[in-house]
């Protein structure tokens, strides 16, 4: 009997407002420790929070992009617990009345759309950064002392909670990537997992196929890349299945996935019991987003990545469309003329593979290169691609170098390759058409990449043809 994973994500997005959530200290990354603090974000006695209007507007904007209802009245609440990175002894968050209520976020997949339910999206403040020193270096546990840097403390954070609507690690990763791209395009966050401006926790459980209701879930904390999210979820799903199949029970706990070893270990909890004693923040008044504001924010939302994937899929198929859109490279794609598939392929496979910044590529020059691609020696084309983002790049000098298309010049190389691979020749003649690419590749290799691949392909087919 098969098992079905049930996954929900909890995503934190750090907003790139100019100032922090409740004080006007600059919201910047990478400054010297404790140089971006004030009495408010150090929680000195008597200070009060004042909300950042832009952060509120951006949260509404994000909520609209996620198909959420914008609450007529949102209330900030205090979440009480002690930790050195939490200077007030409580985090200002939202609890019973979040800014953005239920929504549905459409994630295009290869076999149709997945609608992922959004439980809520709310605004809160980030904790400070604690560096553990003394004791064994670099390990979370066992350090003797910690140093607290409050620069990050109090920066605005949106927490997005999905319904447990995801059914595989792959789907979770796809959802997260699309969400990230949406956030980036709204211009509200860098959303870089490596820098921590996008963070993801996953709630994972499994159940028998067809089983109603949910089993006990565990929470996987702080996976800091898309790959780790997928691998962490996969590992936890396997662990839970193995537990049940061995006759055991999954217990509710918070877990840490170690991408180096692939192991999953329980995390020590901050508070022995999660009793956060939420209550409405008496230092703040409710937020009631005016209807005109919500309307103007809605009107300013551009065509979102999900819709663009569906549109481009018509031209180039799902995989290329998704790859282009979630990497933000479809902006270049849309501006380059020429055969759609060829353009998409070159951008996704060659430009991206060579690490070229697609934002700096001149679409007209790239279009010329792609148009002439098959007539150019492969090495020349590759070199041109590698330089396409350089200032003042021109395709012209590369276009002059024509690939070898003359049958008389190519014949000796083709003969040599066929003679060297009698088994493959036999297999091809036996019906393995796929080997054509192999022969073309060998000829390209033998000619140092100077041959016109399409001509080689035709010649090989003629030679081996019935």
């Amino acid at each position: 009997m098969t098992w079905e994973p049930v996954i929900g994500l909890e995503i934190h997005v750090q907003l790139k407002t100019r100032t922090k959530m409740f004080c006007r200290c600059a919201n910047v990354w990478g400054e010297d420790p404790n140089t971006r603090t004030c009495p408010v974000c150090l929680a000195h006695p008597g200070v009060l929070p004042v909300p950042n209007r832009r952060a509120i507007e951006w949260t509404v904007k994000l909520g609209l992009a996620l198909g959420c209802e914008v609450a007529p009245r949102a209330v900030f609440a205090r979440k009480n617990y002690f930790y050195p990175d939490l200077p007030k002894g409580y985090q200002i968050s939202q609890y019973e009345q979040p800014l953005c209520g239920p929504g549905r976020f459409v994630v295009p997949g290869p076999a149709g759309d997945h609608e992922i339910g959004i439980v809520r999206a709310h605004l809160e403040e980030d904790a400070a950064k604690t560096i553990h020193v003394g004791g064994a270096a670099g390990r979370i546990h066992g350090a003797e002392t910690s140093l607290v840097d409050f620069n990050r403390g109090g920066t605005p954070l949106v927490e997005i909670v999905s319904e447990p609507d995801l059914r595989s690690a792959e789907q979770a990763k796809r959802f997260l990537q699309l969400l990230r791209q949406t956030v980036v395009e709204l211009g509200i966050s860098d959303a870089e997992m490596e820098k921590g401006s996008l963070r993801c926790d996953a709630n994972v459980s499994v159940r028998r196929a067809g089983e109603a209701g949910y089993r006990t879930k565990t929470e996987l904390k702080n996976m800091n890349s898309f790959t780790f999210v997928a691998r962490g979820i996969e590992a936890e799903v396997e662990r839970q299945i193995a537990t049940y199949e061995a006759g055991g029970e999954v217990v509710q706990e918070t877990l840490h996935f170690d991408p180096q070893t692939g192991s999953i270990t329980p995390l020590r909890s901050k508070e022995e019991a999660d009793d956060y004693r939420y209550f409405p923040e008496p230092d703040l008044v409710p937020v009631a987003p005016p209807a005109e504001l919500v309307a103007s924010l809605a009107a300013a939302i551009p065509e979102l990545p999900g819709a663009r994937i569906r549109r481009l899929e018509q031209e180039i198929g799902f995989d290329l469309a998704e790859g282009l859109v979630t990497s933000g490279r479809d902006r270049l794609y849309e501006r380059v003329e020429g055969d759609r598939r060829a353009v998409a392929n070159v951008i996704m496979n060659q430009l991206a593979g060579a690490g070229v910044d697609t934002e700096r590529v001149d679409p007209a020059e790239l279009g010329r290169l792609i148009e002439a691609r098959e007539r150019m020696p492969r090495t020349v084309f590759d070199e041109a691609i590698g330089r396409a983002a350089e200032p003042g790049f021109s395709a012209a000098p590369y276009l002059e170098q024509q690939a070898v298309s003359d049958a008389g010049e190519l014949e000796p190389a083709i003969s040599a390759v066929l003679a060297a691979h009698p088994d493959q020749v036999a297999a091809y003649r036996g019906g393995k058409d796929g080997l054509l690419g192999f022969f073309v590749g060998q000829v390209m290799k033998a000619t140092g990449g100077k041959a016109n691949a399409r001509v080689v392909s035709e010649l090989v087919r003629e030679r081996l043809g019935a």
Partner: protein
Amino acid sequence: MTLDTLRLTAEETAGLIERREVSPRELTGAYMRAIDERDGELHAYLHVAGEIGPGVPIAIKDCITTSGVPTTAGSRILQGYVPVFDSTVFARCRAMGLPLIGKSNMDEFAMGSSTENSAYGPSRNPWDPERVPGGSSGGSAAAVAGGLAPWALGSDTGGSIKQPAALCGLVGLRPTYGTVSRYGVIAFASSLDQVGPITRTVRDNAWLYSIIAGRDPLDSTTVDLPEQVRVPTAESLNGLRVGVPRELNEAEGIEPGVTASVQRAIALAEELGAEVGEVSLPRSVEYGLACYYLIAPAEASSNLARYDGVRYGYRAEAPADLLDLYERTRWEGFGAESRRRILLGTYALSAGYYDAFYGQAQKVRTLIGQEFAAAFERYDLLVSPTSPTVAFRIGEKAENPLAMYLSDVLTIPPNMAGLPGLNIPCGLSEGLPVGLQLIGPQFSENLLFAAGHALERAIGFDPVPERLR
């Protein structure tokens, strides 16, 4: 010239400065001499600043931050803490040139009604040093009544301005919630705390209120005043409808001498032209105290979480680990009443009890607001005693928290509804001052000042303690 600091009002002092009959240096010097003479006994101040400046000197309650001047809120946990920023109210005083005489004593974190909860020892009542000055703004009241300051700022959560003003024979305003900035005011209970003036006269009170009131961009819960503050001149109460809430005037524990003084004041109000009638606030008085002692400790338990020995203030010696640091710092740093309220508030907010306690108390609060609103449909102002008793003896209630809590039974109900209240002295009982509480609708400070001024004139109370005359 010799300055009678026991008698001079702020208004008179300003006149002396303006006419150059006294220099700022002489003025501060006079208060410093009075402090030398009497503060050893009264202990009104925790820190004497002795600033010299162009305006009328002022005493500031120690929960109000003053940049560069120690601010402890009467707590050991803030011993040695020197703020790097000014509270908005103090910044506004500074902008008017008011020099700081000193930081006045208080119950720790404003939790108390006698100043006996100060970690630095109690203040004493200038009318009788064996007795408390009230609290929590007892140091501010003792300073003004004892001639150690012409006026002062206090803060009021459950009655902490009105009650000490009553016990020391002074005028004290607890303003409408939201009219005075709380930025830099060390929080006790955020939805109730308000700063207000403690003065010798109603006119001084209105003047100081006009300096500190108004919207502050640093406090999201403040509003602009709907009208300018008027320093009162009226001496008649013609046409004023004055309601006498039965429960606030007949509550158990009100001393007969207090009732007698208040009744005389009410009779005087009628003579001045007021129409006096009875009104009822049954639930506000019956449930107000319980409601307050859930909401205030709940908010306090959260507000006081920041005192953790990490960024400032007291830290326990040689902590073994983080938990040890927190638990010992906080137990050793807080006094008994603060600990009690933190525990009570934590319990009231904790899982499983929220709805029964904090949630229910917030609904009771709605009910109290509705009862007062109904009363104000028939009356412009309400009157009652401010404190059920005159100043009690030091130590008399110190061992019984619940008895101490009853000191605020008459001031708490209007506070729960965010209403302004003015205490004016209305006579003596057993040689000690009795306070009259005037309660108005939200933003009715001008009306309170006008009525308070007219009554003050008619009553003719002498604010100088008899033993110091």
